[in-house]
């Protein structure tokens, strides 16, 4: 059986260990992120939400998931 490799990524400033086989879309679905209400930045680059399934997360990736909150 193929051993699943783990990678470490930083998501919204917090370190997380995940399976390296996951696509960005799979990972965000696992986190139950409401994709229509957020924007995603990977290593300081904004990701087109239509291309999430084509992106594979790598070790040391830094991701930001943002949304709108109350503000002045």
């Amino acid at each position, binding site marked *: 059986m193929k051993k699943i490799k783990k990678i470490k990524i930083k*998501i*919204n*400033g*917090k370190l997380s260990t995940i399976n390296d086989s996951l696509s960005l879309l799979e990972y965000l679905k696992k*986190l*139950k*992120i*409401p994709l*229509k*209400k*957020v*924007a*995603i*930045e990977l290593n*300081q680059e*904004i990701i087109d*939400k239509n291309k999430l399934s084509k992106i594979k997360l790598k070790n040391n990736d830094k991701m*930001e*998931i*943002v*949304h*709108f*909150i*109350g*503000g*002045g």
Partner: protein
Amino acid sequence: MKKDQLKIAKKKFDSRLIVGTGKYRSMSECAKAINLSGAKIVTVAVRRVNITDKKKPILMDYIDPKKITYLPNTAGCFNSIEALRTLRLAREIGGWKLVKLEVLGDKKNLFPDMIETLKSTEVLTKEGFEVMVYCNDDPLMAKRLENVGACAIMPLAAPIGSGLGIQNITNIKIIRSQTKLPLIIDAGLGQASDAVISMELGCDGVLANTAIAKAKKPFEMALAFKNAVIAGRQSFLAGRIEKTLYGSPSSPTKGII
């Protein structure tokens, strides 16, 4: 009577009051206050999603962006790079092009850094954003913002959240006289009469957040601001009388017994 709408970047809005969505005790309080204020535009901030606690309420569940225009704001950004990053992300969330740029220069008084603001306005405009710009009450900088493509000028009345009301009426009058762009008083208002004064100066609108959210009774204050903006606008359109030094009787002097 012709419908008197606020026009910004070719869009029309039925209210001249813009309301901030920060500092409320709860999302439901915020949503109710906005409803009472009649505002059709609300400012919102871009922040990290809470990954660990997904039960935390989301703003969009309370205020429907299809009914109320979300105006993403860069509050909390202290340089051009942060502001550009924030608004590019905001655009990605739902295609928002109409944005409010606010680049702060000092944590204590929250005055805008106008050099960074000017730089950011130029870049954002070139990227296709429609940029409403928070700025100082400085007519020269207001003109420069207009020259680089700002779609609305938003001078402060006083420091953000201070509640001091308009501190420099003369400068606001000068900015009004030099621009046809929408002029919206942003920041520092404390009570409804401040909104009346702003509108009577010929401004196109006002933005209030703390004055409503932190009033002892936010719902009543939201309503007061709604009425104040309408009253101030009507007073401006009606045209005030000339000021004179001496009295002029309101009753006819003829026929006095």
